[in-house]
């Protein structure tokens, strides 16, 4: 709490994003003396350029779609277009409300917050604003930034990253989205709702390629219905400017033209020129390497969040930050089971999962030991009311626990909480089936899927 040059903090944290601030909050809660160093804004990518603003855009898109389709529900309303300045105001209001809350929280926990660009100066210190901040332990949490490809220069106007897409002052008439992962399909979805003509280019054979193939296929079907175009299985080759936009050429010579090109091929760690190498921190392709307790090879240095090669998710950052703080405060900690971390893609329809894919389960347990079951939301009353389509797919070890839950459908991301308990607590289908779920909710579909997997389907065929 003291902040003169002679203070030695228990914990000096470099980077105030999801991973860094979670470590700070939990550390302070446990009585540690914490310094949190952030060069930009507390909250990092997630709050300012990631999770929150994208979800605000997607919700504005949902409002737009519902206004367009209102007559299907008996509501007379005319959709007249998007007021992008007002969308940004809505989005920025959401961010600033949460930002204030987070600042209040950090202040109330008595974390020493230092604004400035820091640099690791020894295994136990960070230099910032010409001062040396000493700590018994240092946590690296400098996060990630958008990546590009060799020869593909992000100009921020026609060739853009998610950072630019989030503040674009217009709805593009047409857009090419390079990358069909989470960030790519979320922007594709929001833009389509806003009226953009969207084409996704994905080099792998599927959209959201790390999901269970069934989810990818369902999303592709839904996007096709929405008129979102995509080209799968061929990699990007080059991009060039046209008179009023961009032309993209793929490895097979196919070309696409649009007003803007969003590069959403992934994010790379922020670790260059920060003193990490100099202090002997082991790295691989820019990622800081850690063990399952988030320890680097340097005993006084830990690292969390997008900077380390685990899932790039805000709540993974939270979990890793909390784990480090608890470990350093002397609590017993349990390594994170990354398969047990819930994943949600907030496009329309949503994709959500926890546990392993069917393919992965077969690798782990043997093909003959794995069973799977699909429950179609067509049989789910609430989903019918919402006019959404999709499925819940369960992957089970024969006669054993549910090891994968994979869902597609509007709002299905909210079901991942129950799925998360089922996976992490290794529940048997019959144990879930025994508990009759609330009618008529989308949650009921989770119950029905488990009833069916337990051999006693209620609202579905045997």
């Amino acid at each position, binding site marked *: 709490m003291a902040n003169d040059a002679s203070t030695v903090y228990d914990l000096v944290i470099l980077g105030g994003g999801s991973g860094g601030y979670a470590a700070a909050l939990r550390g302070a809660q446990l009585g540690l003396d914490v310094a949190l160093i952030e060069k930009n804004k507390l909250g990092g990518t997630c709050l300012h350029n990631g999770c929150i603003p994208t979800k605000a855009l997607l919700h504005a898109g949902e409002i737009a779609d519902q206004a367009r389709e209102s007559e299907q529900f008996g509501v007379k309303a005319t959709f007249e277009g998007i007021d992008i300045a007002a969308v940004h105001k809505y989005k920025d209001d959401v961010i600033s409300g949460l930002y204030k809350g987070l600042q209040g929280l950090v202040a109330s926990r008595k974390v020493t917050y230092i604004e400035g660009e820091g640099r690791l100066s020894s295994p136990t210190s960070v230099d910032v604003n010409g001062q040396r901040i000493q700590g018994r332990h240092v946590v690296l949490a400098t996060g990630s930034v958008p990546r590009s490809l060799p020869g593909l220069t992000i100009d921020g106007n026609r060739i853009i990253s998610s950072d630019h897409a989030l503040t674009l002052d217009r709805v593009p008439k047409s857009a090419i989205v390079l990358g069909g992962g989470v960030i790519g399909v979320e922007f594709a979805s929001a833009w389509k709702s806003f009226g953009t003509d969207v084409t996704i280019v994905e080099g792998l054979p599927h959209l959201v390629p790390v999901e269970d193939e069934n989810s990818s296929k369902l999303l592709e079907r839904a996007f096709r219905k929405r008129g979102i175009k995509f080209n799968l299985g061929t990699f990007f080759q080059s991009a060039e400017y046209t008179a009023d936009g961009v032309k993209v050429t793929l490895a097979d010579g196919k070309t696409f033209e649009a007003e803007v090109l969003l590069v959403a091929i992934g994010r790379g760690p922020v670790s260059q020129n920060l003193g990490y190498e100099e202090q002997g921190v082991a790295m691989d392709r820019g990622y800081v390497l850690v063990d399952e307790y988030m320890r680097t090879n340097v005993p006084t240095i830990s690292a969390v969040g997008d900077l380390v090669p685990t899932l790039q998710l805000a709540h993974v950052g939270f979990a890793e930050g909390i784990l480090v703080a608890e470990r350093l405060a002397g609590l017993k900690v349990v390594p994170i089971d990354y398969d047990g971390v819930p994943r949600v893609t907030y496009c329309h329809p949503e994709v959500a999962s926890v546990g392993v894919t069917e393919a992965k389960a077969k690798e782990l347990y043997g093909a003959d030991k794995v069973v799977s079951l699909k429950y179609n939301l067509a049989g789910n009353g609430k989903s019918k009311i919402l006019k959404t389509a999709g499925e819940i797919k369960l992957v089970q070890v024969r006669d054993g626990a549910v090891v994968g839950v994979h869902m597609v459908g509007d709002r299905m991301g909210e079901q991942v909480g129950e799925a998360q308990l089922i996976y992490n*607590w*290794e*529940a048997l289908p019959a144990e879930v089936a025994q508990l009759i779920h609330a009618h008529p909710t989308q949650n009921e579909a989770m119950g029905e899927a488990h009833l069916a997997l337990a051999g006693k389907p209620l609202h579905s065929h045997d």
Partner: protein
Amino acid sequence: VPEQPAAGRPLAKPPVRKLAKELGIDLATVVPTGPNGVVTREDIRAAAAPPARLP
């Protein structure tokens, strides 16, 4: 006598099984004291504790 569950799996609610796993306790070796022969969290903790000296 507690009823034997189907498939030979010891009866305990999922979070309790998880606890047993974390503490390295084999549920089959735990004496259940819950209703219907269910192994409780306390049973697991008792099994995990060092054996008490007989009086």
